[in-house]
């Protein structure tokens, strides 16, 4: 695969797919979309053989097309250990979401548009994770908004338009601060090196006084704190996730939230190491605060989709906490948790959508005990639930466990705080599982339930299988980003210590 343009191929394929859909009959569109995303997924799997794990800190599959030489603006893409994991997650979840949509009752009209928007989302998401040029990153970051806006607004549930507005406005306005930050960095580069540049590696060379660095850190943070989200900025999320169609929620929770945490790690920590070290206590405590509060919010939800949405916020708290511990365990926990949460939250949203198709309700009371009539589905949901809770062997276990270990390296108290957070996040999953399994269904309301099968089973299975892999074979995943983390920590040490 030497010299093969992996990234452009996997970005162009969905574009071509959506172009083909434009000219075909409505009923065929779902198959074109499935085949296209399947192709991209296989391509990403295939690329595993060509990824050099020993040099995972280095950018591989690199491609560069200059856009404006004067401003050093180029379509510069490549994957290192961190972005590679995100790339795999994107192709996997996109495939799974599209497969799910083919059998979703909610997606009954305007199929062409739906699948075009979905394929475009896949292109943009790969662009987000692969770009090494900050302006290009921003372009893709913004572009993901447009398809999701339409997916929520057209195919969503009752409050769809309101939620779509809220989603778009929150993220668009916050990301304008990011734009200001990016162009400021380019200006600073001009003042220090005599030329503008948006290239990630060029901007790494910039040096700033601490106040200015903190200011830049905050500009970036505003955007990513809303996107991630961290607690006071999370209010768009339950609406957007709660009202989106199932596949939309899946992509939102599994990948769009990761854009925030990915960017925090990739840009905030790497570009502003001094500010990160300076603000570390604040960020860690903020992360723990997010975990605890989001867990409480979660337990009080009566709508199962909003329940899952809030649980995502709590998981993101773990990611932020782990990341800003700025040590090996913390970073490892953070990246593992990003991947793991992508799987569990997708599966939980699929669960909610699946039950809705049976019961036509998202109400927790209506759901009581319903799952017992679908044995296969019940097993899958149980696995997902325990994974999400952080039971050993479950995918989230490593995220939570390593965060605690990382916190222990500082003080015992900090580790204790994380444990408190982990406790609350276990509580809400147990509450969910109890409602689904142990509560009894009222007499006379028994409806005939068909168990999960076909494409939905496949889509669900695509989520559950990697969950096992993360849980039982975590070293497979650590291999991606161990070198990256080592490299990152060395960079931080050299900049801050020097």
């Amino acid at each position, binding site marked *: 695969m030497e010299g093969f343009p992996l990234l452009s191929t996997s970005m162009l394929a969905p574009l071509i797919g959506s172009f083909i859909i434009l000219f075909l009959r409505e009923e065929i569109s779902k198959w074109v979309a499935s085949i296209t995303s399947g192709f991209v997924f296989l391509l990403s799997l295939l690329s595993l053989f060509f990824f050099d794990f020993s040099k995972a800190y280095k950018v591989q599959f690199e491609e560069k097309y200059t*856009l*404006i*030489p*004067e401003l050093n603006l180029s379509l510069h893409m490549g994957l290192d250990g961190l972005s590679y994991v995100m790339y795999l997650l994107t192709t996997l979840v996109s495939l799974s979401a599209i497969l799910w949509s083919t059998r979703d009752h909610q997606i009954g009209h305007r199929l062409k548009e739906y699948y075009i928007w979905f394929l475009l989302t896949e292109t943009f998401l790969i662009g987000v994770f692969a770009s090494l040029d900050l*302006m290009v990153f*921003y*372009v893709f970051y*913004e*572009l993901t*908004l*447009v398809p999701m*806006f*339409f997916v929520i*607004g*057209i195919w969503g549930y009752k409050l*769809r*338009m309101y939620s*779509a*507005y809220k989603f*778009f*406005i929150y993220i*668009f*306005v916050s990301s*304008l*601060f990011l*734009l*200001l930050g990016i*162009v*400021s960095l*380019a*200006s600073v580069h*001009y003042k220090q090196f005599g030329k503008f540049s948006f290239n990630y590696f060029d901007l790494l060379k910039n040096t700033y006084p601490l106040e200015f660095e903190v200011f830049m850190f905050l500009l970036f943070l505003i955007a990513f704190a809303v996107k991630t989200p961290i607690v006071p900025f999370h209010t768009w999320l339950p609406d957007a996730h709660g009202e989106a169609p199932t596949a939309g929620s899946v992509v939102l929770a599994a990948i769009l939230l990761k854009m925030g945490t990915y960017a925090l790690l990739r840009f905030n920590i790497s570009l502003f190491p001094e500010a990160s070290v300076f603000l570390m206590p604040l960020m860690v405590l903020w992360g723990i605060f997010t975990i605890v509060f989001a867990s409480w919010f979660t337990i009080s939800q009566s709508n199962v989709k909003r329940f899952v949405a809030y649980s995502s916020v709590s998981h993101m708290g773990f990611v932020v906490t782990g990341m800003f511990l700025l040590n090996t365990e913390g970073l490892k926990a953070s990246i593992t948790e990003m991947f793991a949460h992508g799987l569990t939250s997708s599966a939980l949203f699929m669960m909610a959508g699946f039950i809705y198709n049976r019961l036509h309700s998202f109400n927790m009371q209506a759901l009581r005990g319903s799952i017992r009539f679908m044995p296969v589905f019940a097993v899958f949901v149980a696995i997902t639930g325990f994974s999400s809770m952080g039971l050993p062997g479950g995918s989230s276990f490593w995220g939570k466990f390593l965060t605690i270990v990382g916190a222990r390296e500082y003080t015992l108290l900090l580790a204790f705080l994380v444990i408190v957070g982990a406790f609350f996040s276990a509580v809400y999953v147990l509450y969910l599982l109890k409602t689904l399994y142990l509560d009894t269904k009222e007499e006379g309301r028994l409806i005939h339930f068909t168990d999960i099968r076909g494409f939905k089973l496949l889509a669900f299975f695509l989520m559950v299988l990697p969950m096992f892999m993360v849980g039982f074979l975590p070293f497979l995943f650590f291999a991606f980003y161990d070198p990256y983390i080592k490299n990152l920590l060395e960079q931080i040490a050299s900049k801050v210590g020097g």
Partner: protein
Amino acid sequence: MEQLIKLELPSLSLIIPELVVLLTGFILFTLDLVYKRLNHALAITVSLIGYLIALLFLFLNWGLKGETFYGLYHRDGFSSLMQAFMILLTMLTLGFTHAYYKQRRSTYGEFYYILNFALVSGMFLVSSYNLLALYVALEAVSISFYILTALLRSDFNSKEGAFKYLMLGGLSIALASYGAGFMYLYSGSLDLRYILTHVAENQYFLVLGLVLFLVGFAIKIGAVPFHFWLPDAYQGAPTPITAYMASVGKLAFFAPIVRLMPYVQEHFAYAWVTTVGIISAVTMLYGNLTALVQKDVKRLLAYSSIAHSGYILAGIAVAKVIGLKAVIYFLLAYALMGFGGFMVLALLERVPNWENRLEQFSGLRFSVPWLSLSFMVILLALLGIPPTVGFVGKALVFMALSFEGLWWLAFIMIIATGISTGYYLRITALMFMKEPNHTFDLSISGGERALLLLITFGIVLLGAVPIILWNFVSLSAENLFVR
């Protein structure tokens, strides 16, 4: 100053494009005289041929630079770029107007040569440093616009808009000429470059003159608090003319202010940044806030045009090369987007009982899918979603502001853009997410369809591959700074 004494033959080679356009105007005028009922196809063909030839001359002598008529006329990269865009936009306008006027039974032969006259005077306005020449060109553009606004003779709104425009336009020209007088008093010259670099005793005359002069232009570009005519004139004018005013008019009226930027001297740089910055901040906030509550989409786009004047002024506040580049790019970008936005409305107005009301846009996708898609792209471009020209313009303005360290203005621009999300998004959402009240058929001719597609495609292409326009913009901006 010596130029005034030396006798020179005007070098006509510099103004060939203008001469060609002017000649076209005379031919159109004669045609209108000769034929009792002007054949519109003929008039359009003649205009298009004339403009194409002018454009051809412009491109053949792209690098041409120089002054003629004793410094009254100045050609450089900036003026060539602006003129090329103005001619292109005029040609695009011609593609939409005939069907519009025909439906309103308001087809007049005057239209063609007045449009032509507006273009010629606009072309002069973007290529002069001389107060006298600027004054004449400004007056000529304005008069053409008054007539064009009023040209829908059966329509009351059209006349009302034209009258308001005339009153405030007259005021603006009076102010500008008064300011010019003070500047002459200060320096003894009519050349802006000389005036601004001249050092004399009475700085007050310069400040007073410059302020009055700028206020005159601020009225023309619709900067708050001098904007009151703009929504009425834009709403009252025939919609293709609104598009024309929002694109060619904006380019022409902004050009003299842009030409001032390299001559902002150290000693009044602070005053410049503060004044222009505050006007820009007020303009974008006011424009966007007012647009948010509009029920009429044409009026909404007029307010959005005011807001965009604010964004461009923010770039002008940064009197550096990077600011100049941002301003020129944004100007061209807005010309394209504003033009497209109003032209979509012009096409929609063909639907019976169409009043541009916001709720009429609900479910538009089900009646005219391609038109709504174009409109969506244009609206998102106005909002500044990548990869569109609007985004590139906005990013460049942000870059200029951060370069200069004008953080407060940058934050206000973020807030203003945030406010604008509300109304651009509402129209988009209405078009695509609501079920329609009733569907209708709209017959758009192949030519109009192609032109609209071209504009939409241009908006995306110039944003996705900005290098196409960037080199021209960058070069012309740098040339302006070379004294």
